Every structure is written in C-alpha cells, then in structure tokens.
C-alpha cells in the first residue's frame, strides 16, 4: 500500500495546531511548523508535503507572503495549499476563487466540523499536485 499523505501544518498558535494534528495524525503523516519561514525550513530539510495546511495571520512570515515564496519556488510551487484561518474576508476568499490556494476554510473550533471540512479538502487535492 502507498504511504499516507504528508501534511505540513503551519500555525503559530501552538494549542490549535496540536489539536488539528491530533485529528489528522490517524490518517496522515503530519509535521508542524509555527510560521511560513519554519515551514520552508522543514521543506528545505527534506519534508516535502503532499498538502500544506496553513494559517494566514502568523508572525515572521505570514500566509500571504508564505504563498508568494511557495509560488516562486522551483520545487514547491505545485504543492497544494489550504488556508485554515479566522479571516473571513472577501480578499482572503478571493485567493480561493482565483485558484491561488486550493481551499479557504474558516477555522472551526469543533473536532467533527474540522474533520468534515478539512479531510475532503485534503483528499480533493489528490493527484492534482503534479498536473497543476
């Protein structure tokens, strides 16, 4: 059987990050980073995820700038990105409609709700990474 998907979870708020990890780690291989810069370091060190699930408002390198870095990166630009954010704003949603990110999910604070939204979003990215 193929190994499970690798998820890079980028979130500065440690508690939330841990809880999302707890929910995902049964199904996926999850690595955590606390901002965009740490995420890039993880990837440079060899953890190439199938999907990046990232917060938007973060210190050091926020979700917007992190995305720009990814899109300009030779190897990382095709990795699908899911935004998991509190920012329920049209300019954030626009990133989804313009297909700059695969999905924008407004942070749920209930396990079931998070699973219901996040798992299909992760599964949806299957195979697309290479075509993109």
């Amino acid at each position: 059987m193929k190994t499970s998907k690798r998820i890079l979870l980028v979130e500065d708020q440690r508690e939330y990050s841990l809880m999302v990890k707890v929910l995902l780690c049964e199904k996926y291989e999850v690595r955590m980073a606390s901002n965009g810069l740490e995420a890039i370091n993880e990837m440079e060190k060899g953890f190439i995820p199938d999907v990046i699930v990232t917060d938007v408002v973060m210190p050091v390198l926020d979700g917007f700038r992190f995305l720009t870095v990814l899109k300009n990166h030779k190897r990382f630009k095709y990795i699908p990105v899911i935004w998991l954010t509190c920012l329920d704003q049209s300019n954030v949603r626009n990133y989804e409609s313009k297909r700059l990110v695969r999905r924008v999910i407004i942070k749920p604070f209930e396990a079931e709700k998070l699973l219901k939204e996040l798992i299909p979003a992760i599964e949806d990215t299957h195979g697309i990474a290479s075509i993109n």
Partner: protein
Amino acid sequence: MIAEKASILVVDNDINNLSIVEHILCPHNTIWKAMELQEARLILNESTIDLILLDINIPDRKAIQFVEELRNSERFSDIPVIFLSGLNGIDAIVQDFNAGAVDYITKPFLKEELITRVNIHLEYRKMKATLLQKEETIRRHNLFKERLYKVVAHDLRTPFSNISMLISLLDGGYLKPGTEDYKELISSLKESTKGAYFLIDNLLHFTIAQSGTIRFQPTQIMASSLLDEAIQLISNQAKHKDIAIKVDYDRNCSFFADLQMMRSIIRNLLSNAVKFTPNFGTIYISLKSEDKGCLLVVKDNGIGIEKERLEHLFDVVIARTTLGTGVERVSGLGLQLVYDFVNRHKGTLCIDSIPDKGTTFSIRIPSDKQMFG
C-alpha cells in the same frame, strides 16, 4: 462674572470711537485697538483675541468681507464678532448678519449696553469652549472603550474557542488521556484559561476604578511576599518561553498600600514583562528601601517600547494594542491600571525603554503611613 481679563479687539476708523469703547471696557478687559483691517489682522495673528467689536461702516463692505474671512479661517472662526453701526445702517446689518456676526450695537450706545452685550458673548464663548472640551473627553473615552471591548473580546475568544475545541476532542474520543499531546494541551490550556481569568479580573478592576467607586484601604504589606506570589503566577508562562527570572530583594521592604491594587500592579508589570521578552530572555526584579518609600524595579531585555509610543503610553486613545514576542496581544489595560493605581498611592512610575534592548519599570510606593501624608 468673567474671572480672567478677556482680550477684546476693537476695529473702528474713528479714533474717538476707539477711545470711548476702550474707556468703557478697559477696567475688566484687555483692549486692542485697530483703525485699519490690516492692523486688525496683525493683532489677531500675534495675540489671542476673545471677542471682536467691528465698525461695520468701514468703506466698500470691507468689514463684511473681513468677517467672512474670519469665519472661513481655521484659527479665528469661533471668535465672536459684534458689529458697531450707526443708526442708518440697521437694514444693512440685518442682511449682513449672515456674514457671521453674533450681535450688533448701534451708535450712540449706552455704556451699560456695551458692557452687558460684550459680557454675554464672552460668557457664551467660555461655556461653548467648556462644552466642546467635555465632548472631546467623552469622545476619547468612548473610543477607548470601543478599542477595549475589541481587544478583550479578541483575547477571550482564543482561549474559549480552544477550550471548546479541546472538549470536542475529548468528547469525540480523539484525544487520549495520558498521551504527550494530551499532557501538553491540558497544561497549555490551563495557562491560557488563567490568562483569560486575569484579563477578566483586570477588566473588572478597571471598570470599578473608572466608576470612581473603588475602595482604597491601605495597610502595611510585606513587599517580598506579594512579589513571590506574583512570580509564582507567571512562572509557567515564563518557563514556556525559557525566560529566566532573577530577583534581588530587600526582604524587609514593606508598602503602605492597598493589597488588591498592589497585587494588580505587580501582576500586570510581571505579566507584561513576560509578554514582551523573547524566548531565552531575562527578567530582573529588584526591591529596595529608599528614603521616600519602597522601590520596585522590573526590568526586561525584551522588545522595548518606541519613543513615540512611550510618550503616549497612558493616553487612552493613542496607545494602541501591540503584539508581544509570542504574538500575545496586549490590550494596554494592565498598564492603565498600573498607572491609575500607582497614582492612588501617591507613588511614582518611571519607564525607561530602548527598542530591542528592553524596558525598565521603576515604581516607588510609600512604605509607611507618614509618607502617605
């Protein structure tokens, strides 16, 4: 009726009229005389005028233009102008009222009439200024409260939403007790719950302090035991960020202070120090006796406060929310309380800060009843 001498500018191209008006008004007011509008402009620019008496019969409707000019200027628009006019000019005056005069007096006038009218308008102007000042104060308070609600709501939202998430994780059986994740989450949420409680506590203190009903009951308090208690409360937060806390106490130091307020002062200072100090930083706390009381110093090597911000730190509207080093949001509420409570103790609060080097808070609190006066 009017306590201070008011400055009145009289503009009239008849020198006799100027002298008469000056003679009537000068015992209670400072009189500036101008025969030409150009002269009047000079006087306006160089001194603070409270009221203008303007002869409307200055040729070519120049007087009217002059008033319009005043109304359109930012600096002089609220100076009341009273027209002086000969009897034959009444019709014109009524028409020209729109130019922005507040009143008119026809020549020849009674001494008492001039004095009364001038005084009414001076008084009215004063009342208006007071009212505007009060309105400004209310506006600033409202702005502050608005900002406060926003920050408090935000700061409470995070721990509450995390608690909600944690409960659903436990309830759904996703998080197994005893695992490393479980231990970390529980200990970390314990901290943030404590933080939320502290914020609510601060808010409550602040509300009571603002309403003026706060109880101030100073007693003799051992300073070191209060500090120990406060350090205990922030020790976990500090540990999370690997911040070292170094203390240097004179154990005999005591405050003559209100226990609740002093507790709030110390907790807020320490909590801010932890928030603004980066990982692996150090916080120094020292306590020593001085002639004028007890000196408490809380020094950190954190991110510091910019000079601009420092100057307005206690200005409720300008002071903005900043982020701590670990993205903790700081409402500024704690510092407001510290400032307010230190003042109630007739103590002093000194802040030295260099951006990126750190901040030192020095607080002097009377150490016995005598010093308190």
